[in-house]
């Protein structure tokens, strides 16, 4: 269970408050107008940006001061999810051991993860030799290996076409189901939210609201969301 306890996030004129709980294993979309603070909210949860006040708790444990790499989560950014100068295998190995050594047992696990992600035999390639969809698969394979209880997606599939994006969301759903992962996904596309996330956190007007049912939220959007959706 992820708890955002009276968080206040400030950056210049920008201000966002969040006081909410996300149940373990939930799949939650984070939607709202541009500039509302969706990515910033994820940054605070991941530990890249410090909130002005309030706490972030995971299963009741305060992780507000924890280093990003030590938090119980994996995060995929919009881009730069792989080190371009390392092979796919080395990139995945960093998910198992940040010291960078690749043990023999790790190799088997990495190979399995590659197969799971549909990248069989591509471990020796550099990210630049993969297509955009394959790069996303590799990043997901690393998240699979890390097997952290939370997965934060900050629009990592925004650059992919609709068919590829649907494929990736399917892969995320599969991983989340198997590992019981709690998923938080920022999205610009309400259809992504409907497809993957039964629940949605609406970020608008300086507030991140507690999760609500995605279908009914999108079918009956409040004014702030309606303007954004243009429906």
């Amino acid at each position, binding site marked *: 269970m992820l708890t955002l306890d009276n968080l206040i996030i400030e950056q210049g004129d920008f201000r966002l408050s969040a006081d909410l709980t996300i149940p373990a294993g939930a799949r939650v979309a984070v939607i709202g107008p541009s500039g509302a603070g969706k990515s910033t909210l994820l940054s605070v949860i991941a530990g890249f940006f410090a909130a002005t006040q309030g706490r972030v708790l995971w299963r009741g444990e305060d992780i507000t001061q924890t*280093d990003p790499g*030590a938090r119980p989560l994996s*995060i995929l950014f919009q881009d730069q999810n792989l080190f371009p100068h390392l092979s796919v295998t080395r990139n995945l190995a960093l998910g198992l051991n*940040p*010291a*960078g050594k690749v043990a023999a047992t790790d190799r088997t696990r990495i190979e399995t993860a590659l197969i799971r992600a549909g990248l069989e035999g591509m471990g020796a390639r550099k990210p630049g030799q993969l297509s955009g969809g394959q790069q996303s698969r590799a990043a997901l394979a690393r998240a699979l290996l890390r097997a952290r209880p939370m997965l934060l997606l900050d629009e990592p599939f925004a650059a992919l076409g609709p068919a590829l994006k649907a494929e990736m969301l399917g892969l995320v759903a599969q991983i989340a189901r198997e590992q019981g992962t709690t998923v938080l996904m920022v999205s610009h596309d309400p259809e992504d939210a409907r497809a993957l996330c039964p629940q949605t956190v609406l970020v608008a007007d300086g507030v991140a609201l507690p999760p609500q049912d995605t279908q009914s939220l999108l079918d009956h959007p409040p004014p702030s969301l309606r303007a954004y959706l243009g429906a």
Partner: protein
Amino acid sequence: MAARAREIAPAAVAGAVLAALVIGTLVAVAIRAGGLSGLRTSDLAAIRFTLWQAALSALLSCALAIPVARALHRRRFAGRDLLISLMGAPFILPVIVAVFGLIAVFGRRGFINAALAHFGIEPLSIYGAQGVITAHVFFNLPLATRMILHGWQAIPSERFRLAASLGFGPTQTARQLERPMLRAVLPGAFLAIFLVCLTSFAVALTLGGGPRATTVELAIYQAFRFDFDMGRAASLALVQVAISVTALLIAARVTLPASFGAGHDRSFAPIAQLSGGAAHTALDVAAITLAAAFLLTPIGAVFARGLPALSNLPPMIWSATATSLIIALASTIATLIVALPLALAATRHRWAEITAMLPMTASALVMGTGAFLIARPFINPTSLALPMVLLTNAALSVPFATRILLPEIRTLRADYDRLASSLDLRGIARLRLLTLPRLARPLGFSAGLAAAFSMGDLGVITLFSDGQTRTLPLALFQLMGSYRMDQAAGAASLLLILTFALFWALDRLGHYADPR
């Protein structure tokens, strides 16, 4: 907190060593100084000469560079790219080699004077103030040309297309596009060259001297070597630092352009209408031909006389070569060990960048004088000659290496810091897997520059040398001093070849190590 302290510890150590070298030697000098009253009239003349020769050198370099840069920008000809690349070469050209080449061309027995004598004209002298300034223009004309050319290339080509569509000719183009650019670029170029010329030592040592062409750096050397007047050397050292710091503070208000690496800008196609008619073409041809001749003839003269003499070099040249190579490589390593942690920390801590720039306020001679004063009570300072040369060379290269690394590190941080910390990649693993591979190219380039600077340096070694301990530039200087000109030409060729080979090899190594 502990993690944060561990993160900046390498930079703190590197910064402390560098500050000790720069500030520690300065403090030693200050304590020893007998006050400014210890200065003589000749020293005041040296201060005056230092300032006006630097100003005049910078002015001439910039003024001459404008037509050359304009010609390079609006003409396309075979060898243009090569010429632009060669314009970067004086940056690492050993001063003593250039001086040898200039003497070969403009000296008493040079072919300019031979030609003048043919017409019964009095010979020109390459020695004295005009010689010092000629040498400074030789070194800085290419620098100024590259900076100004960079300014021209920074004007978007759409702007030139617009100018052509509005029916502009060369005059309107100059007024609307080029003069505003020059107004923006020239102050920075002038100051950059002025700063370099302020600490000129080797040029003044070889071509200057006497009451009318002595720089402060040379006066420090003379007070130290010939008069054994430590108090005066110390006073002069403080004057030198005061001049440099003042000039740097003024320069900090003007954005200094990067002094290396203007590109070839292949995408820009000159538009004939803007480039003018036959008169402009003739002007451009003359500018390029004269500049190329001025820059290339001295180097050609070195090789013409030196290459045949390579097989006939005295044994002392070979031992000096070995010494120089070892010092160059060791000081390159020292440069990187200090510059990399400071540059990595500098993106977050202002003090790290300031510390890395400290050596710009120092001069090799001031550091040398300070080290001599510190060491003298304990050991024979001449035994410190080579270590001091190594340390000062390394320190003086740190600002350059830091400036080359910083923008690349900023990019690296922007692109991969979040990913690295989300994966908990840190310490040695981060250095090995992320930092070093991504920085291979700028590290190779920095290493190449540091090695070339060190290889060609003729500074501290002249203070300390007992005549037996010598680097290759010093050996060349000694050969020139005893008028063994053929051997000197051979040594100059050897030094030139080795300097550029070192630069090229290290720069290539960086490209080779780059996993991209």
